[in-house]
């Protein structure tokens, strides 16, 4: 099991959107090249997005059935674990190629903000697991109306 920490929240998030995007792209590029070198990563691969209301986590879990996936949120840590089993096949058959790996997996991710645990939902479709984690009320950006006098 490995935990991924997010980088510290950037100081100039609002004022430097382009620069911030560039910085994130650079981070991602570096991460990708280092990941290529190591050749192996923890299963499943994740994509994480956020908007002002929620954090979205998607995972590529082809071949994993719904019953074999466990998702839990504890504080600000999301854990996805489960097992990929091979499909049943005829006993007398012999393999020509065997590229799809099977086995157990477990992965924990530190979420960037506090989560409203009640509202967490997850769907599994076509081998993609999508988890939606609404942000807790206290961390949602508040709009303040300006009154004209």
């Amino acid at each position: 099991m490995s935990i991924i920490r997010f980088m510290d929240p950037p100081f100039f998030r609002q004022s430097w959107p382009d620069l911030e995007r560039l910085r994130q792209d650079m981070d991602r590029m570096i991460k990708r090249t280092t990941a290529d070198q190591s050749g192996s990563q923890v299963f499943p691969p994740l994509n994480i997005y956020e908007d002002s209301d929620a954090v979205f986590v998607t995972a590529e879990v082809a071949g994993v059935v719904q019953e074999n996936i466990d998702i839990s949120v504890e504080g600000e840590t999301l854990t996805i674990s489960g097992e990929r089993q091979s499909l049943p096949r005829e006993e007398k058959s012999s393999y020509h190629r065997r590229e799809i790996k099977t086995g157990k997996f477990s992965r924990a991710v530190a979420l960037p903000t506090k989560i409203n645990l009640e509202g967490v939902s997850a769907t599994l479709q076509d081998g993609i697991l999508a988890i939606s984690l609404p942000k807790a009320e206290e961390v949602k950006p508040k709009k303040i109306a300006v009154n004209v006098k």
Partner: protein
Amino acid sequence: MTEKELQTQQKREVQQNAEPTKPMKQFIPTVDIYEDENSVTLLAEMPGVSKNGVEIKLDDGNLFIEGVMQSDQEMAGKTVLLQEYEVGNFIRKFSVSETIDQDKIEAVMANGILKLVLPKIKPAEPKKIEIKAG
């Protein structure tokens, strides 16, 4: 550690002679292929591809499988925090040496895994010819 944890396999991108016109990336799906007396079975891992996005062609011993992703609108308007996998279409070709009964090919798409059963054509049973004494 008693059991080895499952590792992510890096997606391999298709190396093409010509550039695709669409900006989408194309990957090689990982496959399992096994054979028994009656058929050749192929399993291809294509996460994110629905039943309608799969295309299979078999002609002259060349098997072509393609999985087309639905456009990825989920990302739109959101900030990316972590990206470990890229989305794209899946393409892979095989040459099949066995004689396949094309009419009876079965394909099932479930949980992002395509299962393709290619039934073999059975060779004609040897017929024994008796020689009558003349």
